[in-house]
């Protein structure tokens, strides 16, 4: 077990270290998220749609786009110089490989979201009413599930020549339930509704996470056999 955890930590650690050393992808994805927020603001008629009414959708669509972009590079970096073959030759179980990549992706996307939420509050003049941490928590809860699916999908699409096109197409249907539910919960929180009203949505996200993390763990090894 400790061996397994050490393998997971080594894989997640190498991804995060590589990311922190170059920071290109992290900065680019965060900038991208900021720009999506800007574009959303100007893609509306201020006389017809108020910022506040649009805010929850903006947050969730931005999260969806930014994480799809981020996931694309998870396995793309392994393709260069056939690094993936090296990983597969290492005496590490396939599921540890998945968990390592998955945790690195969660950290990456979670960081982008950590910057996106305050930017969103700033740009859209949202009154959080003390729910800032709760909203970020819901975003993270949704992230845990769809990043699991996205990690599996990106391991596949990277083997094609059209990875950057295929990943969003395959990924978006899986983003619909968490985004729908997340946006509903956010709308209620921003509207000052009691927590009791969102607990059902939170439970939905937790079940989604449970199902898709389990599936990803079971399915990922099948992608890596030769």
């Amino acid at each position, binding site marked *: 077990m400790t061996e397994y955890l050490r393998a997971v930590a080594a894989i997640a650690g190498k991804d995060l270290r590589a990311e922190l050393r170059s920071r290109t992808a992290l900065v680019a994805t965060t900038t991208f998220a900021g720009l999506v927020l800007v574009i959303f603001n100007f893609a509306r008629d201020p006389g017809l749609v108020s910022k506040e009414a649009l805010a929850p959708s903006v947050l969730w669509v931005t999260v969806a786009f930014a994480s799809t972009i981020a996931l694309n590079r998870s396995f793309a970096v392994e393709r260069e110089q056939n690094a993936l073959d090296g990983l597969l030759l290492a005496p590490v179980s396939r599921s540890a490989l998945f968990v390592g990549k998955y945790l690195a992706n969660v950290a990456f996307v979670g960081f982008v979201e950590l910057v996106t939420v305050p930017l969103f509050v700033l740009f859209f003049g949202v009154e959080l009413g003390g729910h800032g941490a709760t909203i970020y928590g819901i975003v993270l809860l949704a992230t845990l599930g769809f990043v699991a699916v996205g990690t599996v999908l990106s391991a596949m699409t990277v*083997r094609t020549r059209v990875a950057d096109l295929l990943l969003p*197409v*395959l990924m978006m*249907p*899986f983003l619909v*339930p968490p985004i729908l539910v997340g946006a509903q919960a956010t709308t209620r929180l921003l509207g000052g509704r009691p927590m009791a009203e969102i607990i059902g949505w939170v439970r939905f996200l937790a079940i*989604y996470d449970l199902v898709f993390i389990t599936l990803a763990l079971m399915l990922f090894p099948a992608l890596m056999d030769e």
Partner: protein
Amino acid sequence: MTGQTDRLIRRGFVLTGIGLAGLAAMYVMALQFTPTEARQGLAQKIFYVHAPAAWSALLAFGLVGVASAAYLWLRDPRLDRFAESSAEVGIAFSLIMLTTGPLWARPIWGTWWQWEPRLTLTLLLFFLFLGYRGLRASLTDPSERARFAAVVGVLALFLVPFVHLSVYLFRTIHPQPIVLKPSAPSLPWGMLRTLLVSIGVFTVLYLGLVTVRYGLATRDDEEARHV
């Protein structure tokens, strides 16, 4: 081996032919021998194409999921070919469902499109399986293609309840189930009979098309092996 495949394809064509003849008969039955719905009038007749097309599409995608899971377990290439075939036929049926739906919805709901659970689910599955086809088409190694496609097939199967439930909680105006529901079907017998016939016809069409497509996939694999 090749003779066997040819026979399979021919059998698929025969089955499809029977399905098409049944479809023609079902049209006559629906237009001439089925009572017209009191409030919706003729527009309701599209129901006899729409509902069975939806049935065939969901059957097709559901079987892709089952065959995919079985493939990952048994690694039998026949299961992969079946999943590939069923996915394509499912795309065709969901396109029928997605075009007949708005045609009916315009006069009855007063809007072409409505974000409603069953409609949204079919649309998302349609998109997802277009992606599935795209993934298959862009992978050249047969074993890799089969494994990857199977993973997407299984994931799609598990996505269904989540999409349905979340959009249902969003809100719905779709006609509620009138046949498959806990109490007795509330559809008058004249209409129910036509519906059952059309579901039968669409199932035969599904089987015919999948058989042809499966035969063609088998032939492709055989040719690939000879080259």
